[in-house]
């Protein structure tokens, strides 16, 4: 079962980083109480955020964080895949390209030259893409960052050979389960919860903050209908576009609703004030 040569029979776990902030990997270290027990069941063979000591592959399960943004990434993810029996992506970057995928929708190189003094030293791709655009993925965990309970659940399910209990429905259902009064209905708060995948336990609404979609689109997200409603409740087109263009900006369900309000306005022959433009700030 184990890929290592000694008598250790624990399945091996590896953690890999691509373009990302490390927050999702940290969720594994965040499993403080469960971490010790977990290491009894799996052998953490490659996790450089935790230890420099690594064991060579192949690995039974690989957790992959981050998106593919460089030519080197494209090659490295193939190696990771080839060395992994199961490949689980963790987080919004790996699932949809992350906030760095905003570059996908502007003039190539324009962000790099705005951020770096010498962008000519960079060797990057024009787009930030999810892991699934490059290799076969066995399971995707969403969130920015992922929820550590969901991470544990996926690992425990893997160990027990069962299906993980991870929902594909809306954040709203988590609000209802914890009796959080809906902010959108009771306070006209712009909330993406109805079209966002559950998993966080409706964290933001529980502290009176509308969901900004960090878990990405839910299974059945109907984003156009929600944004039409939020527009009626007072959100401007620019606000809605910004709301949809964060950690999951490149997720198709979110992306397809960006600019819809302005496009409709243009087709009606209305002119928009500059303050309604999504590119401000």
């Amino acid at each position: 079962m184990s890929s290592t040569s000694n008598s250790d029979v624990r399945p091996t776990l590896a953690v890999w980083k691509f373009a990302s902030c490390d927050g999702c990997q940290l969720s594994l270290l965040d499993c403080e109480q469960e971490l010790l027990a977990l290491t009894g069941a799996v052998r953490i063979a490659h996790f450089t955020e935790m230890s420099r000591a690594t064991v060579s592959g192949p690995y039974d399960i690989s957790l992959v964080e981050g998106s593919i943004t460089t030519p080197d990434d494209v090659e490295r993810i193939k190696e990771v895949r080839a060395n992994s029996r199961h490949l689980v992506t963790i987080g919004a970057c790996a699932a949809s390209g992350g906030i760095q995928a905003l570059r996908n929708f502007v003039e190539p190189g324009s962000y790099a030259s705005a951020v770096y003094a010498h962008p000519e030293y960079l060797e990057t791709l024009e787009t930030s893409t999810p892991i699934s655009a490059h290799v076969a993925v066995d399971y995707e965990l969403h969130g920015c960052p992922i929820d550590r309970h969901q991470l544990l659940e996926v690992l425990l399910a893997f160990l027990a050979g069962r299906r993980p209990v991870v929902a594909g429905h809306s954040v709203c259902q988590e609000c209802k389960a914890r009796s959080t009064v809906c902010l959108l209905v009771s306070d006209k708060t712009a909330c993406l919860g109805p079209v966002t995948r559950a998993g966080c336990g409706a964290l933001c609404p529980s502290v009176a903050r509308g969901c900004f979609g960090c878990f990405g689109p839910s299974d059945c997200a109907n984003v156009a209908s929600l944004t039409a409603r939020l527009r009626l409740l007072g959100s401007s087109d620019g606000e809605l576009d910004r709301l949809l263009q964060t950690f999951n900006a490149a997720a198709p369900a979110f992306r397809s609703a960006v600019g819809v309000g302005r496009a409709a306005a243009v087709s009606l022959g209305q002119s928009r004030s500059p303050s309604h433009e999504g590119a401000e700030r």
Partner: protein
Amino acid sequence: MSRPAQTPDGPGVKAADPVVLGLDGLDALITKLSESGYEVKGPVSRGGAVVPGSISGVDDLPAGVHDEQSPGGYRLAQGDDGRLFAWAVGPGSWKGEFFPAHQEVWRARASDEAIEFTEAAREAAPLAIVGARPCEFRALEVLDRVLKDGAYRDPRYADRREAAFVAVVECASPASTCFCTSMGTGPGIEGGFDLALTEIDDEGGHRFVVRVGSEDGSEMLDSVPSTKADAGDLEARARVLEGAAANMGRHLQTEGLAGLLARNMDHPRWSDVGERCLSCGNCTLVCPTCFCSDVHDTTDISGESSRARVWSSCFDLDHSYLHGGAVRASCSSRYRQWMTHKLSTWWDQFDTSGCVGCGRCVTWCPVGIDITEEAAFIAASDGATRVSPPSTRGGS
């Protein structure tokens, strides 16, 4: 509850005669319930809504709180009156007290020889509710048919229901989204309850007319300070109910409705609502009769496993997942499933409507989809069909 009073409606019988309680009497009733071993809950104003919560006296009830509801909208306002029940139902129904969102059923541990199962602990104290609305009480009776009295009894639900005490408070202030008069579930209530209260605040003072519906109800009233209700009190109650019925915000034409929906499964309106519906599931989770649940089997690191029953919704893709995919993959097919179940096939299954007209699904739908409006639209264009036959798969 549910032991009927020996003479529920017998005239001249002391125990069943309506009485009048003041605020002190209501307070004493809550104390009495608590001293009798009940966990007492009632409506409380919390987080911007009136929701079920623990109460230990009248001070915990939402005095002067009023609500304004509309499709997809809800607001509370604080009045300077002291009325405790001058609002219509909020987002949290009493369903959650008997059928919680997440309920562990058992845990199991495997050893070399055997698998040992342990039943999960249950609530120790029986529940007493003070201030369920008539539609909510009727909703519990609808749930009873599904979870208690039908072929598939849920012992956790059934035991907690059978042990519960319910004091209903009739409605004086329906919301614009309420339609209990259409469903025959309110604003007044006759029978089934332990106690039924009507809040009256007129020249005769702020008081409650209380009718007794069970032996438990009469026992709990026993030592509570009360006076016999006179004709004036009973007239005042009738006026409250008349006023409420006259202010009912919505209407649902129920005559022939089950058949209407059954023969309009191809109506173009399903596609139209499918474009608006978010598939978020809010309507099902706020509905006091929606009972769908899922079973979650999980394992922990110590080798113990657990089974939990959790709320589910017909708006989830997983809900209709059969081998190879979801049967109801389009939003229109999911909405159609929900609405036709509530108003049509529920009759076939449980010999009752699945809707009690509480209006929650209308108010708490983030995009304000209104079940009464959808039904009225179909009724007005009975027999319309889509140009091409609907697909349960793909698109909306």
